[in-house]
């Protein structure tokens, strides 16, 4: 994609962001749900085109963290900027933010009353009010890109988990995001369909899409990520390039976690 760079008000230029700055910058983010502090001061940067994997045990705040990036979850303190846009700003233009950040969920969350093609077309047509025919052409191309040509008119209920998840990826891409968030997108899939989804994400990453993934697929993280962050109980315990991180984990908790999972 990207060849037809339609200018949009969501483009980073509008916010004073320049490509030499991190596209996502997370600074000392804290978040509590009731009495439970889920994020206890998390910071990291993501540069444009980078692929970041966040790993860690269940309940360590990974999903909450990436939900903060597109303001699905509000933060209590700290700062998150996405392409120069402060997420914690009460005057935040959420629409613009969410055009910049795409998200794919563990449970696919396709709209079951709409076909695959309609799922992909809905947001650009209804939210961005883009031309329907132009969007349809783009949606068909996106479905072809995720290898789902011929499934345009299928309803989500008629597709396998892996197919649904690829529709969800195409749906997100149809908004032409700058950053993609993947929240354990293969965790609900059958082992044999995990691969087809990972292949799609890999292609996306290799095309230069900025990706933040929460994942349990260690092999995938190792081979694809530019940087790994290990979270436990709301903090980043350890991080580093995959080769270093997996070969010689320094922290006790990281070693215990990797020992369990690998």
């Amino acid at each position, binding site marked *: 994609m990207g060849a037809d760079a339609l200018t949009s008000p969501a483009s980073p230029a509008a916010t004073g962001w320049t490509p030499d700055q991190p596209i996502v910058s997370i600074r000392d983010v804290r978040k509590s749900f009731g009495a439970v502090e889920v994020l206890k001061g998390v910071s990291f940067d993501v540069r444009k085109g980078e692929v970041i994997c966040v790993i860690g045990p269940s309940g360590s705040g990974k999903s909450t963290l990436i939900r903060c990036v*597109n303001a*699905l979850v509000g933060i209590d303190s700290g700062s998150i900027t996405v392409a120069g846009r402060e997420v914690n700003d009460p005057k935040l233009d*959420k*629409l613009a933010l*969410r*055009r910049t*950040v*795409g*998200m794919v*969920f563990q*449970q696919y*969350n*396709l*709209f*079951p*009353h709409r076909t695959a093609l309609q799922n992909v077309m*809905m*947001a650009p047509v*209804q*939210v*961005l009010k883009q031309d329907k025919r132009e969007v349809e052409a783009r949606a068909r191309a996106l479905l072809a890109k995720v290898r789902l040509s011929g499934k345009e008119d299928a309803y989500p*209920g008629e597709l396998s988990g892996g197919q649904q998840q690829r529709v*969800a990826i195409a*749906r*997100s891409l149809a*908004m032409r995001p700058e950053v993609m968030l993947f929240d354990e997108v293969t965790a609900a899939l059958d082992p044999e369909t995990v691969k087809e989804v990972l292949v799609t994400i890999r292609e996306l990453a290799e095309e230069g899409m900025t990706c933040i993934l929460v994942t349990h697929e260690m092999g995938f993280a190792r081979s694809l990520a530019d940087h790994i962050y290990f979270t436990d109980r709301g903090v980043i315990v350890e991080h580093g390039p995959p080769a270093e991180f997996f070969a010689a984990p320094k922290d006790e908790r990281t070693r215990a976690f990797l020992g369990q999972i690998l």
Partner: protein
Amino acid sequence: MTGRPLAVLLPVASPAPRSFPKLTLVHCVGIVGALALVGGAAHAQGAPAAPSAFEVIFKWSPLLLQGFLFNVAISLLAMTLGTVAGLALGLAQIGTNRPLARVAWAATQFFRNAPWLVLLFFAMFMIPFQFRIFGYVIPFPDWVKAVIGFSLPVMANVSEILRGAVRSLPSGQWEAAESLAFSRRQTLWRIILPQCVKRMLPPWMNLYSLVTMATVQASIVGVSEMLTLTSEVHAAEGGRPELLAPLYGFAMLCFFLYCYPIGRLTQRLERRFNVKS
């Protein structure tokens, strides 16, 4: 003891395919026949000149069926009015305007937990028999008040059905829509509510059956619907006790023939929608 295992140790028969006995026209005719027989037996001991229950029902059936149509009309109007009001109330309940949502919730609970007959009395005695607007006099006959009276519980139930349907959708639908930059209003109208229609249809049809059967309560406040007419027909035939069962049996049959297919259809829809959303 024989070698047979104790019955209690046998595996419980799987309850999966519950097949209901299908009621067909034959059964219905049977029911009517039985009722007529009861009447007929009583008739045999009565005065020899009195017409049989069949003859009475046949003679009065145009009037009685007209009464039944009135019940149907009241139920349809109450359902329409109640559904429109209930959808508005339900939307207010799930809305972001907190005070409005509170009021809508309270109204829903109030009308949902009041006996229908009390609401009917309430409507009968609180609503004036006519309104005067800009010099025009709009009459409010009893049956219109009955429609309003029945629409109140319908409204409350539809409101709750809507709220339940919206709540029953997985939160992931809201999250996905939000992450695609849909506004809350767009999410509700484009994504959530279209999915709720299917979920709301079976309970809504159920409610309609209940309303239809409840319309006979209007006889208590003097609306000349089927039950009122049945009682009048009975009086006109000299109030013979042996006519009671056949006459009211006929009324029952009419309601049954009307409501039973709705119930079947509701079940079928429920089963179909349950398969997979």
